[in-house]
Each structure stands twice: as C-alpha cells, then as structure tokens.
C-alpha cells in the first residue's frame, strides 16, 4: 500500500514539474505580444479557478473538523478530558468543541481569504504579497502533510480514508502551487505588457 501511495505522489510531482518545464521552455523563446497576452489570460484564469478551489477547500476542511468532532471523534476527544477536574464532562466537551470550532474557523478563514485574494487578482484587481505568503505556508504545510500521510499512514484510519486524505492534500498542494506560479508570472507579464490592474 505504501508503494502505491509513493507512486501517486511521484506522479503528482511529475505532472507539476512537466507543466512547469513546458512553461519555462515557452518563455525562453522570444514571445510576441499576442503570445504574452494569451499567457497572461491563462495565468489570470488559473488564479480564478485555483482561488475558487481554495475557498471550497477551506469550507470543506471546516466542515470536516466540525462534523468529525460531533459525529465520530468523541472517543478521541475523550483522551483530552480530565476526569479529576471540577468541571462536568459535558462542559469540558463543550469547551473542546468551541476550541476546535475556533481553530477550524481560523484555518478555514486563511484558506478562504487566500482564495478570495487569488480570485480577485485573477479578475484584474491589485493584490499585495501577504496572501502569497499565506499561500506559500499552506503549500509547505500540506506538502509535509502529504508526504507524512504517504510514508506514515495512520493505523487508526481505514485505507479509503487515507487515500481520500492523500487526494485532498495533493489537490491543495497543486492549487497552492498553481496560485503561486500564476500570481508571480502574471505580475511579471503585466509589467512587460504595461497592463494596469483596473478592468
């Protein structure tokens, strides 16, 4: 099973590297203004689509956190309960759910705000570089998550769940990479073409 996951991970890396190689080769040639315009349209479209995907991932991760806490994870949450505490068990559960809610919300907000920024940049609005920093952090985090899940799958998770997690993490890695790549390239092309940000 590990071998399959490693193969999937290698395939994803190959796709990313191949598409990046093609773009680099294209850009090495001296491109006409029309070609640059076409590439710019492509990168802006990518920002819109990947931004929408990141928003969706944010909502999914929030729902996943909340639902798994409410429906399935009670046994695991029980590990965090202090039976010697004065607080009733129900209150402790409530506090735990609230903390999970807040943490899940913060995490989802990062996804959503980053996605919205990418979406708006794809539609021609000027965006700063802060959202790109968050995108890079998400890229690093989920790349590590992906590698860890492949090499050390959780013994408590079923094979299907592990596979689903790998797909999810791989998609997020691809999205964040796409956003970084397209944002940098589109800004460079806009400078070369003298395109302004207002539509």
């Amino acid at each position, binding site marked *: 099973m590990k071998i399959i996951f490693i193969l999937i991970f290698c395939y994803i890396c190959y796709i990313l590297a191949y598409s990046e190689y093609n773009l680099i080769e294209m850009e090495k040639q001296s491109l006409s203004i*029309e070609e640059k*315009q*076409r*590439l710019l*349209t*492509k990168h802006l*479209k990518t920002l819109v689509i990947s931004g929408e995907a990141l928003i969706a991932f944010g909502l999914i991760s929030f729902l996943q956190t909340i639902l798994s806490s409410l429906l399935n994870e009670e046994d695991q949450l029980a590990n965090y309960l202090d039976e010697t505490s004065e607080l009733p068990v129900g209150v402790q559960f409530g506090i735990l759910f609230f903390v999970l809610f807040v943490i899940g919300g913060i995490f989802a907000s990062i996804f959503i705000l980053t996605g919205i920024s990418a979406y708006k940049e794809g*539609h021609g609005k000027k965006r700063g570089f802060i959202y790109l920093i968050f995108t890079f952090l998400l890229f690093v985090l989920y790349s590590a998550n992906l590698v860890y899940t492949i090499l050390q799958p959780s013994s408590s998770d079923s094979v299907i769940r592990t596979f689903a997690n790998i797909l999810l993490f791989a998609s997020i890695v691809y999205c964040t990479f796409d956003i970084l790549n397209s944002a940098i390239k589109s800004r460079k092309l806009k400078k070369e073409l003298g395109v302004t940000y207002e*539509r």
Partner: protein
Amino acid sequence: MNGDFHYYATYSAAYLAGYTHEESEHIAYCANLVDLCTRTFLRHINGPLSAATSQLQSELAGARTDIIGLQDITRIWASFHFLPKDLYSKVEHVSKHYRDKYHLICGPNGDLLVDTVELAKGKGLEAIGLAMHVLADTWAHANFAGTPSLVINNTDYNFFELREMEDGSTKRIPISFGHNPVTKDDLDKGAYTGSLYQSSERSIMNLGHGRAGHLPDYGFMKYEYVPAWANYKPIIKDNPSDYFHAFSQMVYALQYLRGTIDTFEKDTYDTERIAQYEEKIKQIIRTRKTNCSEEWKQFGESLSGQTIAPFTLETYEEEYLNATQEEKNNTVLGRFILAALAQKSMVTNRVFASNNYLMGFSVDFKRYGFRGLKDFRALLNQKEDRNL
C-alpha cells in the same frame, strides 16, 4: 442571424443579383423558413420529421443527450446554422473526441459552403433560399460549433464590446450575461441574456452560440471574447464587417445560382454590383437595434419599388396540406423539404467521410442500396425521376 437579415436582406440581395420581386420574395421566405421549420411545424403539416432545419427551445429541452440524441441535434444545427469550416484542420495533442468537435467549428468560406451552394443549383428557389440562410449564418455564427460542447462553445467573463465612440476612439465595455430568457437585452448597459453555465460537456446550454447570447446575431456588435477552444487567445468578432461580407457574398452566390456566373468560389464577393448601395447597407448593419426589419424592408422596397409582404409562416401550408401524396414534392413546402433533406444528407456524408461520427452514419446508396431513415428515400426517388 435574425429574421431581419434572413428575410429582408436576402430579398435585397436576390433583387440585386437579378431576380424579380416575386422570386426574391420567394427566396427570402425560404431563407427565413430555415429558422422556423421545426418538428412541431412539420407535424402540423404532416411533413417528414427528418426535414427539420431548426429546433424550438421546448424541443431542445426534451431532447435526448445520449449518442443518438446528440447526433440528431448536431445533424440539424451543423447542417443549417453552424456549417463547419474545415473538417480536416490540424489540431495537435488532443484526443480524437475533441478533434471531432473542433472540426465542426463554423466559419465562412469553407469547402462545405461551396458544396452547399452547388447543391442548390437547378433545384428551385426553395433550395436557393435555404442555401442563402446557411451562407449568411457561416458569417454570423463563426467560431461556434453546432454540437453541444462545453470545451468548444463555452465563454467566460472575458467578454467586452468594442464600441466606437463619437470622437472615433474605441471603448472597451464589459458585457455581462443574465440567464432569464424573458429579459430583453439592454444595449446601453451592456446586459445581455445568454445560456446558463453547465459543467456537463454535452448539456444543451453549450449548443452553438448560446453562451454568447444573441450577440452574434446583432449586426452592429463588435466584441472581444475568449472562446473555450482558442487556448486563451482572445478573438475579435467584427459583425459589421462580417455582415457586409455576408451580403456581398450572397449577391455573388445568387448570381451563380441564377446562371449568370459559371462557378462559385470561396473568398469572392460582388462588391461592384452593390458599390452604389454600400454606404446605405453599412448604415443599416451598424444601426444599434436588435431588430432592423424596418430598415432592411425600406432598403429592399427602394430597390424594387414594390412592397415586400411581411413574412407569414402559414403562407404555403394549405397548398402542402391539400396536395395529394404524389403532388406534395411539387409544392413550395415540398421542394423546401427536399432541399433540407438533401442539405442534411450532404453535410452528414461529408462529416462521416472525414472519419467523424458526431453526425452519425452516412450510407452510400450506390454501393449499399437504400438504408436508414425512410424520409430520405424521397431524395433517391427525386434523383431517379430526374434520370428518367
């Protein structure tokens, strides 16, 4: 194109090509009939359903989108409204399925246009009218395909009108599409009605130029957009120029069909014959209205000096309904039906011969005898009658 061009402009082109007033009216009627000869109409006159040249929205809503249904839809729309430009164009690094759809993209001056015009020669005014409709639509509906396909016909938010201002500059105005079919297009605000985005590749919403609304049918509209097939390259659609080319090419084609010219060639326009009317024609085309019937009617009447009867679908219904089975093919609607069957058969055969099965199978009658839909037997009988 809309009825104003298919009826009144075709009348004007026919008159300029040398046809009489009555003949021009007849040709114009048949040209406009192509947009209205649906299965509902054919059922009403007890005509063969295979001769349908268009589909109502209600018919499309109930249409099957499996392979058989898609072939049926494609046969109608690609044969009469989105005539493919180049069935053998080169496109690399794509699947055969995509290539087949790419080959159905409509455009002017294709080989199939020559086949269409030549097919109408000697077949009567009805066939001529049908051919003129097909010719005109190759200009208006260029860059769209007559098959439901998201990857070919889809558009996105990169849609701008290139409007010429009074000071001669060109302004790039964003266009937005609503999806309420009842709402009228607002030409001033740039708010138009288009079909709803459907992520399904074969959805009816992705048929033809639905995603661009009625913009291809407005003569005054010059716009820039990014079609799904163009690999992010924006395309500028200059309708004023295209409509003028369509008109001048119609005049040329009509002269060939009348017998004044020996051959019909691509990329040829009779601008000499219409030179004295060029300014007037361009002015009508550039009129910022969704329906320029009044303007085209006045122009046509100024050419002939006679009143052009308004288009009435029921004009020849009684003649067809009252005719016996043997006489039906000699009525106006009967000849139109034969022309429609011949056009559909020809286009399907050409597409099939190019190893493209999106329009289904085409049978070589000479080799295999008659096969297929019995409606098309009428073509065989017509050919045999002429041989006799």
